[in-house]
């Protein structure tokens, strides 16, 4: 079994992600691949890591989303593979049209770097196999353009389809603007692709994968590839 991490010029969480994936997926081959010429044909799980791909020029994620590697990501999704976009990787998936919505600068107008509490929403996805609805996770966030925009109609449709994975919340799962660090619509922190096999999220699970760093809530998300698939057939 193999997991790949795509590296773009300006990615900077790829090594952390590799180390965390080795922890989460014992026995798996874990590789980082430069986006140009990347090949995901042997992969079951691809992560688009955090960072500032192409310096966030034009719009965050816009240039990386037009890389040839994204065609490989689409093929992996069609084959039934798992794809996780973390922070800048989430922005890339949105710019590529693989996930809905758009990103703007945080309403607070500055970079936000701190722990955030996340509520696990009612959603069906292997990425959430370790969690139950209402669970509260604590993961670090670190972004300038994390203000995730959806129209009211898009939000309702995603909610109805069980595709809202996480929302920002207080330490006990309470919702409210005071717990929303960046102005995201309805406090959405992570969304799923149509079959639950693509997850985009602003918080960083790879920075919360060991007790040694004080957090390990991210481990369960990264171990998603070990969970039974939605369509059966194991992995």
């Amino acid at each position, binding site marked *: 079994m193999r997991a790949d991490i795509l590296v773009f010029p300006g990615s900077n969480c790829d090594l952390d992600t590799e180390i965390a994936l080795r922890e989460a997926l014992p026995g798996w081959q874990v590789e980082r691949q430069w986006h140009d010429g990347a090949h995901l044909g042997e992969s079951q799980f691809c992560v688009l890591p955090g960072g500032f791909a192409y310096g966030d020029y*034009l*719009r965050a994620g*816009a240039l990386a989303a*037009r890389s040839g590697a994204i065609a490989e990501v689409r093929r992996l999704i069609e084959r039934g593979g798992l794809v996780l976009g973390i922070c800048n990787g989430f922005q890339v998936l949105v*710019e590529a049209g693989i996930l809905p*919505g*758009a990103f*703007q*600068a*945080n*309403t*607070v*107008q500055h970079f936000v770097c701190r722990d955030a509490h996340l509520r696990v929403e009612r959603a069906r996805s292997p990425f959430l196999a370790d969690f139950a609805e209402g669970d509260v996770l604590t993961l670090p966030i670190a972004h300038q353009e994390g*203000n995730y*925009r959806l129209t009211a109609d898009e939000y309702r449709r995603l909610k109805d389809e069980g595709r809202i994975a996480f929302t920002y919340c207080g330490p006990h799962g309470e919702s409210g603007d005071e717990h929303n660090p960046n*102005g995201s619509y309805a406090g959405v922190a992570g969304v799923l692709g149509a079959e639950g096999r693509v997850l985009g999220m602003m918080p960083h699970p790879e920075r919360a994968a060991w007790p040694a760093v004080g957090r390990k809530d991210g481990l369960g998300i990264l171990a998603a590839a070990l969970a039974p698939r939605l369509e059966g057939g194991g992995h």
Partner: protein
Amino acid sequence: MPEYRAHLQVRLRQGVLDPAGQAVGHALRDLGFPARDVGVGKLLELTVEAASAEAAEAEVRRMAAELLVNPVLEDYDLELLPR
């Protein structure tokens, strides 16, 4: 083949929150200027080769749709000048 210089003025769509514009507006008012409804956008410039102005415009509008402008949040005006 004739060359054309394209200027795309990209701005946030009406009704989209513009935190940068708001911040700049606050700063202008702090300086005593009577500024309201400040918006922050961007200007993209490029040269394109095309058989005619119409063909150049069609090409630049394709660029806008495929990469340069995010239609979820942004609008743009296009100005095209022969070189």
